[in-house]
Structure formats: C-alpha cells, structure tokens
C-alpha cells in the first residue's frame, strides 16, 4: 500500500470514528433545505425554480463546516510535524488527507441533494443532474475548504477566517453546480450535462493545483 492510500484510509477512518462521520455536514444540509420552503413560501412553482440553487448553497455551507476541524486538530496534537517528516511529499499528503476526510464526511451530500430536489418538486432527470452536479462539485469544495482550514490552523476563532477565505474561491463551483440544475429545469439537457462536466473540470483542476497551496499553508504553520 502506498503512502497516499495509507493516509487516505487513516484520515477517512479518523473522520468517520472521531468527528461523528457524515452526521455534522448532513444535518446542516438537511436543516438548510428544510428551512428554505419555510422562508420562501410553499408555492410549488417558486420551490421548483429555487430548488437547484438552494441545493448548491446548502452544500457549500455544509462543506464549510467540514473545514473547521480538518487541519486545526493536526496543528494542536502535533500530527502536522509528523506528516511534514513523512516520506510522502506534502502536496500528495494534503490531497490524500482532504479526500479521505471528504469521503468519510461528505458522501451523503449528493444523496441528500437528490432527496431535497424531490422535496422541492423537481422531475426525475432533473434530480439526476442535481445529484451529478453536487457529486462533481464536492472535491473542489472540499479542497478549497481544506486550504482555508490549513491556512487558519492554530488561529483562534478560525471558523470565521475559513468562511472568509473559502467562500470567494467556491463561487465558480457554486455557479456551475447550481447552473446545471437550472439548465435542466429549462429543459436544456445538453447545456445541463455540459455544465456538470464543467463542474467536474473545476474539481479536477482544483485537485491538481490546490494541494500545492495546502502544502504551502501547512509549511507556514510549522514555522
């Protein structure tokens, strides 16, 4: 087993067992989409229109929650130093760590997104687009949240900093992920699937570049 897989498996296990697993972000997501109709009103036409957007925003906020403890714990318990001295290079390590945590804590978000779309009255193929849009958005969202988390590790009230750093960087992902659902609502499925692919492209680009940012942030926290 290579170092990358070891770290991914360890971080997934730690997030699953220690941090309550998927419960936190899932509960947050559910709360957001349940509160939506209460605030907006129950007209089914309005709800269908805002459905994909609400799913996108809720997923984004739920991922921010995930960022809060991602690197802060490593900073305080000394794991950061041990990782820095490991045989795996820091960018690879950062990627494996964030992905491991994301798999353990965020796996339920696309499912809840599909469930929520059903609640908001979207049709079958539209629900599938929302599901795929969220699924392809999550790697990018998690890596951005991880970057903000690494930058703010060891800072008191880091949650505020994480939101301020991560939200602007998450905007493109939100635009694409929610845009796919909106295009599907308009009946333009070519554009919808193209936008899902764009979301996936953003995730892949983020996976290639963001680990270097996270690694630099980790190094700066060691000094």
């Amino acid at each position, binding site marked *: *087993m290579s*170092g990358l897989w*070891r*770290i991914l498996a*360890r971080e997934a*296990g*730690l997030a699953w*067992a*220690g941090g309550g697993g998927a419960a936190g972000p899932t509960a947050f997501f559910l709360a957001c989409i349940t509160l939506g109709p209460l605030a907006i009103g129950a007209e089914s036409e309005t709800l269908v229109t805002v459905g994909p957007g609400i799913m996108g925003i809720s997923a984004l906020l739920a991922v921010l929650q995930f960022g809060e403890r991602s690197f802060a*714990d490593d900073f*305080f*318990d*000394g*794991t950061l*130093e*041990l990782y*820095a*001295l*490991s*045989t*795996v290079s820091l960018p690879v390590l950062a990627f494996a760590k964030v992905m491991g945590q994301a798999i353990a804590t965020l796996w339920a978000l696309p499912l809840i997104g599909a469930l929520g779309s059903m609640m908001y009255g979207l049709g079958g193929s539209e629900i599938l687009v929302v599901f795929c849009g969220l699924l392809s958005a999550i790697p990018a969202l998690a890596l951005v949240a991880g970057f903000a988390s690494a930058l703010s590790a060891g800072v008191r009230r880091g949650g505020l900093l994480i939101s301020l750093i991560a939200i602007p960087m998450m905007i493109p992902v939100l635009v694409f992920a929610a845009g796919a659902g909106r295009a599907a609502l308009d009946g333009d499925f070519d554009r919808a699937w193209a936008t899902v692919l764009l979301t996936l492209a953003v995730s892949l680009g983020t996976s290639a570049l963001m680990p270097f940012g996270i690694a630099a942030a980790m190094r700066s926290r*060691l*000094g």
Partner: protein
Amino acid sequence: MTDCALFSRTSPLLQCTVFALTSAWKLGDMPSMTNETASIPDLSDLEAQSLSVSGLALKRGDFILREDISFALNPGDALFLTGRNGSGKTTLLRTLAGFLPPAEGHIQLGKSSDPAELIAWLGHTDGLKPNETLRKSLRFWSGMAGQPGKVIMPVLKALDIGHLIDRPPARMSRGQQRRGAMARLAVMNRPFWLMDEPAGPLDRAGRDRLGKLVAWHRSRGGIVIAATHQDLDWAGAQRLELGGGL
C-alpha cells in the same frame, strides 16, 4: 553481546564543540542492555548517519535568539540540550528538523539531500489522535516508514504499555500517552531521534524505560537529541548548554 560490541565502536569521544556557549560533558558507563529492549526483533539495520552543525544562528520572528552554535554527532551519540525557559532549545530542535529555516550557518544531517526521512520526532505534544488506538496509529506510522508491523508489540512491552495497545489515548494518562508516542519513534526505525522534553510527564519507571529505549537505539548506531530540564542519566551523553532565556 553484539550490541555492546557495536556500541564500543562509537565511543563517546568529544566530538561536540560549542563556540560562544558553555559546554559540559558527562562521560559515563556503557549503557547496559536489558533483555527486553535488546530483543526487539525484525527491524532492519540502521544506516550509520552523522550530524554536523556549524555557525548556526536561531531566529524567532525578527530577533536572533542564539548565534554561533556548532557541534557534531556520530552514530551512537546522544546530546542533551539544556538551558532556561526561552533559551532556544525547542527552536534548535525545530531548526534541525527543518521546520524553521536557520538564520545563519549550516546543518548537515546525514548524507541524504532530504533529511526529513531520517528523523523521528517527539515534540512537546504526543502526535496521537484521541480516538485512534495505539495499534492503529503505530501500524500507520510504521507502515509509512516502510517498517514491519510485528515490532509494535515488543516495543510496547519494552515500554511497559503492552496492555494498552487497544486503548484510545483519550482514556490514557499523560504518562501513558507519552510512552505511546515514544513507541512511535522506535517502530519507525529512523536514525535521528529528536525529542522535546521526552520525560516531561513520565514517572521514575517511565524514565528508566525511556533510558533503556534510548540506549537500545544508540547501540544500533542511532543518534538522539533531547531538549530537557530533567536529570536523565543516559550513559556518555553530551550536553549543549544554551544559557539563559531571552
């Protein structure tokens, strides 16, 4: 015993010179091996490595903490970093580990260009996850260092915490957690052990176990550097006095 023969090869000559700093040497008996620590099996031999530091200056933020630190260590050597609070012991350790860039001077740690992979680190925190049992965390770290997992139990037994292997650190005492962190150094099988206050929360028996583990590591040609306030009697350990706090 082969271990002692190995150790005598690297008799503690005064290879450590410290300019602008006071230095004192403690020469003692050869470390006596016990059956427990001598019998940790299955670890591949350590590659002999040495460390030389010349003209090193330590920086904390904008101001220079210490200047002109020079010393050299050979396989089997141990070095205590002593000095008051704030004298730069931890900063020196972190600089040696590469976490902080040296303000001036040069560190040659081993022959490799990437010294990080030669260092086993025990900071002032233990590096344990509260809900991860010792079995899982030691498996992870020994695997990361490319070492077999079957050495874990003998090492834990040598530290007298074999019975804690399946207990999460959240339900251990501070001293037990410290011993768990020390086990990580041993199973990673790396030549340089950098330790920050290794004996902090340890009781008397724990300090003895630590001493034996360190003697075992040195007998295999390993190098140990420890920042400490406590009187640890490691045979033939050198001492680098960093002086008063700034």
